[in-house]
């Protein structure tokens, strides 16, 4: 059972990751803000509790594999990796710059620990399924995780992969959908309605769990439940707030694909630091 102390540590890591995200994006001058902030709690829970990994040995054979399908939210992954010790936190400020290992969309070959290359939407679940299939053939014990956006549930490849994973009962695969209800053109249900997502995945042979994606213990317990499902892959539908942690941009789809300017970033950081102070005092 996870202790309250550990949950507090993870929450604090999530806030530190959010701060780094804002700093990275303002330095880069382009990129995506809402998705990375919204997924910070889940990335913190994975990199600081769930994943069996070794930041000093990113190629360790027994590590769990985390495949990020919606590559555009990669600043949150870079920030989580840096805070977990994969590379110096200062390197985050090279995001999207010439010569950086931190490409605008992630590339496996440039950064150890980046399990695959992604950006064009809809191709991550198939890759994760192939990985999980190969691992199961050899009886490998590690788990494969795939993070997706809700917007990329529009893509046909996603459903081809969902059908494949369900048909093959890939129980070593757990997918997480960042259900934040926004995509570039607006709200997902206005652009191309996705609901009933739960019923769709269940019909494709998946076990589906729904959680508040900002509740650390809910995230951890859903992942633990998924490990106990032996006949099916599991989907965790994480209900997230886009832009989480910065009130003035929360739920606003216009922040999907833009970055804060210096003044906005200063306000965002002040708010995030207040939140960090609140977490610290709440748990004391």
């Amino acid at each position: 059972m996870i202790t309250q102390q550990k949950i507090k540590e993870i929450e604090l890591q999530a806030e530190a990751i959010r701060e780094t995200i804002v700093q990275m994006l303002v330095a880069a001058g382009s990129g995506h803000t809402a998705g990375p902030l919204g997924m910070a709690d889940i990335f913190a829970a994975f990199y600081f509790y769930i994943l069996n990994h070794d930041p000093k040995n990113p190629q360790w054979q027994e590590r769990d594999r985390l495949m990020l399908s919606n590559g555009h939210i990669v600043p949150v992954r870079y920030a989580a990796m840096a805070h977990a010790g994969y590379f110096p936190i200062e390197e985050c400020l090279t995001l999207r710059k010439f010569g950086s290992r931190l490409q605008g969309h992630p590339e496996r070959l440039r950064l150890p620990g980046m399990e695959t290359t992604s950006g064009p939407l809809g191709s991550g679940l198939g890759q994760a399924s192939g990985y999980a299939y190969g691992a199961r053939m050899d009886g490998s014990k590690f788990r494969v995780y795939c993070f997706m956006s809700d917007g990329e549930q529009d893509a046909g490849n996603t459903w081809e992969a969902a059908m494949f994973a369900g048909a093959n009962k890939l129980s070593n695969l757990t997918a997480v959908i960042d259900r934040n209800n926004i995509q570039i053109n607006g709200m997902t249900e206005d652009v191309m309605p996705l609901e009933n997502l739960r019923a769709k995945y269940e019909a494709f042979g998946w076990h589906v769990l729904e959680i508040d994606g900002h509740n650390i213990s809910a995230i951890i317990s859903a992942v633990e439940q998924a490990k106990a499902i032996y006949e099916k892959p599991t989907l965790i539908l994480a209900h997230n707030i886009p832009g989480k942690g910065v009130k003035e941009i929360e739920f606003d789809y216009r922040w999907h694909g833009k970055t804060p300017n210096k003044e906005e970033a200063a306000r965002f950081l002040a708010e995030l630091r207040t939140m960090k102070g609140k977490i610290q005092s709440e748990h004391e």
Partner: protein
Amino acid sequence: MSNNKNILKLAYTRDGFGRALLELGESNPNVVALCADLAESTRMLAFKEKYPERYIELGVAEQNMATVASGLANYGKIPFMASYATFSPGRNNEQIRTTISLNNLGVKIVGSHAGLSVGPDGATHQALEDIALMRVQPNMTVISPCDEEEAYKATLAAAAHPGPVYIRLAREKTPVMTTKETAFEIGKANIMWEADHAPEVVVFATGPLLHNALLAAKELEHAVPVVVINIHTIKPLDADTILKYAKEAGAVVTVEEHQIAGGLGSAVAEVLAAHCPVHMEFVGVQDSFGQSGEPKELIDYYGMAPSHIAAAIRKARARKSA
């Protein structure tokens, strides 16, 4: 090359692939086969029957086939994924680009039923752009075997090659021009015909259409001294051999069952324009789609018969003295 075309055995390049895949099943436990509902026609059936645990069915889902293959290769398997070339690498081109080529993962993409010779199925199933699609992707190796024997060797070579490979196959039985003893090395062109006199034209051909190039050379035996070279690997191109013979002959003809734009002819022209500009003629499909018909009818109609190649050889030579 025999002087009498009638004694050449006919065989499917697909069978060469299937034969090699079966052997790889035995020799390499990491080899897996991915199929999109075309096991028999892509010649994966024997592998499926002998190694069912290493045969992965995707259904009619070529995009997913590419991404699942990428995942398998990322894990450490050697995936061969096969479909018709119009669907793979046609339909799933972006998945191949991002998850296989940019990732530099050793997926072997087998595109069958390439070219007009698919015949009665018509334009929708006649891949005429697959070489172009694959050769513009960094990290990708592109092989277009000329016959069953070469398809067999190409498949074995692809499995041993660490990076991604595209192998182009035909639907029809085609003449077997090479033997067990013919050398095959990725990126190394093979001389198939050399006139007794110093060559006046060099023909670079790829795929089963190489046979028509040889027939054209034979037809011109006493009229134009020709060298015919099999460019089985379009990428990486054997630039040394191409430049050596282009310099010697001073005129070049390229022959391929593919669009003129972006295929073998373009690849050869890129090398020659940079290092040794010579007169060039391009035999291939001239910016049009195919249609239903018998393979030979289509090859004749779209200008790739031995007579068309012979005319291109004469024209290339004439341009030198013009």
